[in-house]
């Protein structure tokens, strides 16, 4: 038989441990919802395979009230009518990925790299961070020690899993096709077998 005090201590230890774990992992739990949305449901065109980027469709942007039935609920959660979304989930354990961005000629865009275990943005590519000229960025996981190809800027990720979230500004309804064409050119490719684009 345990005494009242022993019960209290046992309860107390589990309570404190549970508080700590849920608080510590809350951002990770939150972003696991995004991971599932990306890799399992997608935003209307089926699941988005790991190490590829999805670009929000012009239809979804133009008519946000009627998202495709197959889309993750996240596609219609929150209201944003400014930017076309790009989203993807990286796994860098098999080697780095190369992010290619086209020339945005002054237009606002950003590609945000988020560590899914802390919800901390450890790097940005975009108008504020790197400018709007075309470029190639090498996204490498922890412990990668290869040679960075010339002309590429390295982005070191603290985690092999990375949430990539891109935003491209849409000026007006008539600008939507142009913004979409540019968004589509934000692309990922593995470093192995990477060829410079012409």
């Amino acid at each position, binding site marked *: 038989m345990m005494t009242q005090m022993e*019960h*209290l201590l046992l*309860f107390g230890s*589990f309570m404190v441990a549970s508080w700590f774990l849920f608080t510590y992992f809350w951002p990770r739990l939150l972003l696991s919802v995004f991971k599932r949305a990306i890799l399992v449901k997608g935003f209307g065109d089926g699941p988005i395979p790991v190490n590829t980027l999805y670009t929000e469709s012009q239809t979804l942007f133009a008519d946000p009230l009627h998202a495709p039935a197959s889309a993750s609920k996240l596609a219609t959660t*929150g209201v944003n009518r400014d930017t076309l979304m790009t989203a993807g989930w990286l796994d860098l354990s098999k080697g780095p990925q190369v992010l290619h961005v086209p020339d945005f000629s002054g237009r606002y865009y950003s590609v945000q790299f988020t560590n899914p275990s802390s919800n*901390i943005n450890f790097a940005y590519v975009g*108008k504020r961070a790197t400018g709007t000229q075309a470029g190639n960025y090498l996204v490498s996981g922890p412990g990668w020690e290869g040679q960075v190809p010339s002309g590429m800027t390295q982005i070191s990720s603290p985690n092999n899993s990375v949430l990539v979230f891109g935003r491209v500004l849409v*000026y007006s309804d008539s600008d939507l096709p142009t913004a979409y064409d540019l968004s589509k050119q934000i692309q990922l490719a593995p470093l192995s077998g990477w060829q410079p684009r012409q």
Partner: protein
Amino acid sequence: MNNRTSTFLTVLNGVICGFFFINSFFFGRFFTALRTVRKDVVQGILIGFALAFVISQIYARIKATKVNGWITMFGLGEPGNGMLLRAAHAQLFPGPVNVPQEAMYWTTSGDGAGHTLSGKHDYIIHFPSGGLPPNNAFWSLTMGDAKNHFVPNPLNRYSVSDRSGLVPNTDGSVDIYLQNTTPTGHESNWLPAPAGNFILWLRVYIPGAAILNGEYTVPPIVEIS
């Protein structure tokens, strides 16, 4: 989860935890020698989870900046945030949101006087001359219904912004009309509201120094009769 739901859950969880603690420590209930170990473990985990939610919600509200009814948080997604602050950020801004230098977000479900925003009333937000949010990219004001979904309307207009053709007043100030029915003569500055309750999001991308150092204040939403 909108603000009111999370307030409700915070209070509910807080009451459950408080009831549990008061009963245990002051009245000697629950923790009797007849308890099972299983009960200690399960209750410990559940109460710990509820406390994690309540404490990070309360911490988020302490750390949030509230001016004229608008709520924002500085330091979202920045390296160096501690675990409690990260949990607090995830509570109020659940998503992979930007760092402050990239974008700042304000949200509100109430007017400047603290009353819940509803399509039953008409509102104006008045930006004085030169008082639009300073930025190096863009700003926008977006309408959401009580569940943070877009609001159907005859213009298919879901936000107003620096790109939407807002017409300034003669003195250079800008009025934005937030209401369910068309404001006659002010269609260009109309952000259509639903019939029921609504919330608003103000986004400023690449915000200017006045925003980042806290000098800039977003004007209140004012109900007009």
